């Protein structure tokens, strides 16, 4: 996944299969000898417990123990994805949804709980191509946005907003118990994963949901500041990272998005940027 090679092993076949499904977009043809090991198993000392807790380790460290397999699965997946986002080095990584059209990429940098994934899912259903629902990877050489095509993480309530999506989802096959998140492939929303694209638009979803949705243009300096505030690895790139973000802002239109429900916001962005 991006800069990190991982190998997942588990004593639970369902867990292993579910993880394999999630990591399929990142599968490498040849195993990297310098991989990080991820393991989920029942420790022999805990085998007598009812139910026996699952132990999750990454590298040489035990990260958690969890009796529910479905909860262990979500925690393991989240822990691993967070680790990958924080360990990216060959890209400037923004906490952002990212989609693309033939014209270029649209980045949606925002902190957690701003509805990025649902917005991305909505945009895919409207004809955008998928880059990521969580990490906007900016190549420091070309300033292009690259795909980080992890499965799109949705809450149950969000799945209901997309007619027929529930029937297309494959995220619960094989896994005992149901994780509290749902996971979609871009194909489930009638889309596909896009290629590296020039960043044409930056839209910063704000917390204000009052009134109808509106896009307000913002200046280059504010766009750089907002991207920097949502950057996973600016501490590694430091001033060089700010230069990369300035290059992005120089060639992209930047907007603040306020007001409206997720559905309203989706309509507005699709109307504004697909038409372009």
């Amino acid at each position: 996944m991006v800069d990190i090679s991982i190998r997942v092993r588990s004593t639970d076949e369902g867990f292993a299969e579910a993880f394999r499904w999630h990591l399929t977009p990142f599968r490498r043809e040849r195993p990297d000898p310098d991989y990080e090991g991820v393991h989920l198993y029942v420790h022999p000392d805990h085998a007598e417990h009812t139910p026996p807790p699952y132990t999750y380790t990454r590298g040489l460290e035990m990260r958690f123990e969890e009796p529910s397999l479905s909860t262990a699965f979500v925690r393991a997946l989240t822990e691993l994805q967070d680790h990958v986002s924080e360990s990216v080095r060959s890209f400037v990584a923004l906490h952002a949804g990212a989609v693309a059209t033939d014209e270029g990429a649209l980045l949606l940098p925002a902190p957690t709980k701003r509805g990025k994934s649902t917005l991305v899912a909505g945009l895919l259903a409207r004809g955008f191509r998928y880059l990521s629902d969580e990490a906007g990877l900016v190549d420091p050489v070309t300033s292009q946005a690259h795909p980080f095509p992890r499965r799109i993480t949705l809450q149950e309530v969000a799945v209901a907003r997309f007619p027929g999506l529930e029937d297309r989802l494959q995220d619960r096959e094989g896994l005992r118990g149901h994780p509290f998140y749902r996971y979609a492939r871009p194909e489930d929303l009638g889309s596909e994963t896009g290629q590296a694209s020039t960043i044409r638009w930056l839209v910063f979803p704000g917390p204000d949901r009052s009134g109808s949705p509106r896009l307000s243009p913002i200046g280059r300096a504010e766009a750089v500041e907002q991207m920097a505030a949502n950057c996973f690895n600016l501490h590694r790139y430091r001033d060089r990272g700010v230069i990369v973000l300035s290059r992005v802002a120089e060639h992209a239109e930047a907007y603040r998005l306020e007001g409206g429900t997720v559905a309203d916001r989706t309509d507005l962005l699709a109307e504004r940027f697909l038409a372009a």
Partner: protein
Amino acid sequence: MFSADLGEDRIIRGGKRLAGKRVLYFNGVQIYRGRLDDEMAAKLVSFCRDLATKNANEFVRIRAGAVTFAGGAVIFPSMPEPHLPALVSLLVRAGSGYLGDEEVHVDPVLWKIHGTGVPILLDEDDLGLLPELTREANPRRRRRDSRPETQALTPRRLVAPQELGGRFADPAPLRWIVLPEFTPGADTRLEALGGSGALFQIVRSVLNLNTWGDRALLFLRELLDTVPTSRLVVGSLPGASELVLEAAPRIMEEVSQ
């Protein structure tokens, strides 16, 4: 975790002192066995360098020596080559700033060359080129491993650039790429080089190509299109050093303009 067993010195017949056997371990695995403290220190430093830099993927990491002239950097990308640090040492002794002897980091944003901050790890056989360095001679000559993948894994000695009258240089913009070919006894010469041959050679020296993939190729292609590139056939190390010193001011002035 590193640990070391420094052995015990012994007085052998004839009153001669025999240094105890030094053994260096990393996480319990032996990584050095010999009788010289500075050779063991060099192994420790090279091991630390590899550990510290292997994840520095915000840079394109290149197996190369690098020095600075007048604020610009010259890099010497190479396959594993034990004599590369000696070439760098000779240039540092002649007044160049020191960036790296076997690994440097290319900043893809500003195209600056960053050193690793590690002293020079000079091949034991090249100590004779720098007689001002006083180093204890190795009591036992070791047979060199002829396998290509171990060519650069030779006994090394730690040399601070200050011992050569030099200094560590700050990151500097790339001004010249020199691809050395070490051919002992050949006519030492500098030749212009470009196109796919230069790209092929420099790509072979990228240490994190698995991370950068195609993006590294595009980046290096752009570098080669912008920065002058030469092939340096190294028949003799002092001759090669003199050639580089002679050509550098002219080439770097052209690039700066």
